[in-house]
């Protein structure tokens, strides 16, 4: 029997940080598996590198800060950061990219702010943005899905690509990016953006093989797998439904309006929801318990802000996908959101004049 002195409410969820983080990592597994099937085994190599770097950096800086190393390592928060970053970067990016990124996430964004619970920004996303502005070429080299790749890459090739920038049979990444017909293939979001900017209509653009006339070959399945993992997290009460729901609504509502208004020039809400990093970001990244809003109402605002920002940047900004920027901008507004959405204390009247 445990005797705890605590104020009401007395119903406590006895989950530890460690088990929460474990659930997040486990729930990402179906998505990672689908990603490996559709986009090659590179993601597994990246995961390996990221996790090793994250543990190493975390242990090192905890020693420097003279904190206990093992309990902090076993709370698995560094693991989750590493997993999220490894999933987010292109699967065949060179090895130093993920190492620099993970080290930045753990050392600069997390530990220098005081460790788990004190970081203002989502470590994985801050590192992603750092990599994107530092190494724009490497960060945008996504290969098309496996069925569209001219050369099949084995798991061994994945190692060769990541560590030497060439596959074992000597193909470079940009050679592999060329389709069978010799045209370079970008990701669905990127192709669509360039086509629309070039004056093509939506229907014309969707004829490209990279789309399979919908959200993109492979991308749909990856998103569905992360959706599955996310629903599992909600069912297990690891995350609240509010942030993912608000993110998806914040993205779907404006895209629905624009799609209804000009169907030829803007993609459907379903395209937005099942392409790019939508589901991964809505369920796994935006829901980071430290850097997200902490009140129920605030979570809705926070999520909606992310969704809206993603729609705006995808449609009008300079980048094809925008979850990292949107999450960081929303992280910055969290103190403000939390201030204005403080829940009413039980027993007090609803509105208190702040004057």
């Amino acid at each position, binding site marked *: 029997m445990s005797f705890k002195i605590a104020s009401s409410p007395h119903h406590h969820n006895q989950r530890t940080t460690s088990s929460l983080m474990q659930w997040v990592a486990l729930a990402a597994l179906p998505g990672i598996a689908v990603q490996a099937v559709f986009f090659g085994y590179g993601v597994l190599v990246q995961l390996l590198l990221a996790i090793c770097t994250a543990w190493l950096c975390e242990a090192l800086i905890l020693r420097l800060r003279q904190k206990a190393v093992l309990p902090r390592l076993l709370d698995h928060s560094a693991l989750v950061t590493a997993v999220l970053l490894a999933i987010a970067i292109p699967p065949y990016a060179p090895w130093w990219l993920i190492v620099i990124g993970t080290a930045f996430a753990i050392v600069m964004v997390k530990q220098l702010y005081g460790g788990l619970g004190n970081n203002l920004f989502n470590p994985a996303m801050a590192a992603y943005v750092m990599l994107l502005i*530092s190494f724009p070429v490497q960060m945008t080299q996504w290969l098309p899905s496996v069925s569209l790749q001219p050369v099949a890459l084995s798991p061994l090739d994945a190692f060769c690509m990541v560590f030497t920038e060439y596959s074992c049979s000597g193909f470079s990444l940009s050679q592999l990016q060329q389709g069978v017909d010799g045209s370079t293939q970008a990701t669905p979001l990127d192709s669509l953006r360039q086509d629309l900017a070039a004056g093509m209509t939506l229907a014309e653009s969707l004829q490209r093989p990279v789309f399979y006339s919908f959200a993109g070959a492979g991308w749909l399945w990856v998103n569905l797998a992360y959706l599955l993992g996310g629903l599992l997290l909600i069912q297990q009460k690891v995350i609240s439904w509010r942030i993912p729901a608000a993110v998806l609504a914040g993205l779907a509502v404006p895209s629905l309006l624009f799609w209804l208004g000009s169907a030829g020039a803007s993609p459907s809400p379903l395209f937005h929801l099942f392409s790019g990093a939508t589901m991964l970001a809505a369920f796994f990244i935006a829901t980071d318990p430290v850097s997200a809003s902490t009140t129920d109402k605030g979570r809705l605002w926070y999520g909606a802000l992310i969704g809206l920002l993603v729609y705006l940047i995808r449609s009008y900004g300079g980048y094809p996908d925008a979850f990292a920027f949107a999450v960081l901008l929303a992280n910055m507004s969290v103190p403000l959101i939390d201030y204005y959405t403080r829940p009413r204390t039980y027993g007090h009247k609803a509105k208190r004049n702040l004057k």
Partner: protein
Amino acid sequence: MSQFKELSLQGLWKNNPGLVQLLGLCPLLAVTGTLTNALGLGLATLLVLLGSNIVVSLVRQHVPNEIRIPIFVLIIASFVTVVQLLMNAFTFGLYQSLGIFIPLIVTNCAIIGRAEAFASKNPVLPSAIDALMMGLGFLLVLLVLGGMRELLGQGTLFDGAELLLGDWARVLRIEVFHSDNHFLLAMLPPGAFIGMGLLIALKNSIDQRLAKRQIIEKGSIARARVTGSVQ
């Protein structure tokens, strides 16, 4: 002599304009992309600081207290103009790469700060020494930050030194490691902020360590009779 020592210590370490007073951050962060730029701006600032401190100290008895700030600014601005014209004439490449930040030395608070806080209250010699040491302190921070960012950003040191020192200085360029991918973060302003933060942290940690050592060397005073616990 002790005054000289004290002034040097203040300028170079204890009251360093870059690391402690955090003055003149705008040029400090904006132009330290390469070691050469940092050296150029550091020297320009040092010259202006030296000239303005000496002149301010010379005229300090004749300046009415109410309008001292505009007069100091005028003096500083004239020295900046001199330095700017000199750089335009002799180091044109560097002049172009530093751009607006040379005229902006006028607004560098480190300079007006020294004029107001030190030169307007002290005779010429200490003012000159103070300016020299403060300028050197600023220059050193610029150099460390510039070297750090250039090394991380493009793997070289003294890239473009010929802009400042003439053609022979091409041999100064050191390529520490070759990289086709420049680490843009280090070269962009966010990298300057992060690097600056790390430098300040380093300085503070050195200070703490020194303070700790001093306490140990002095030793604690043994008390004959202890009543209650002593922290």
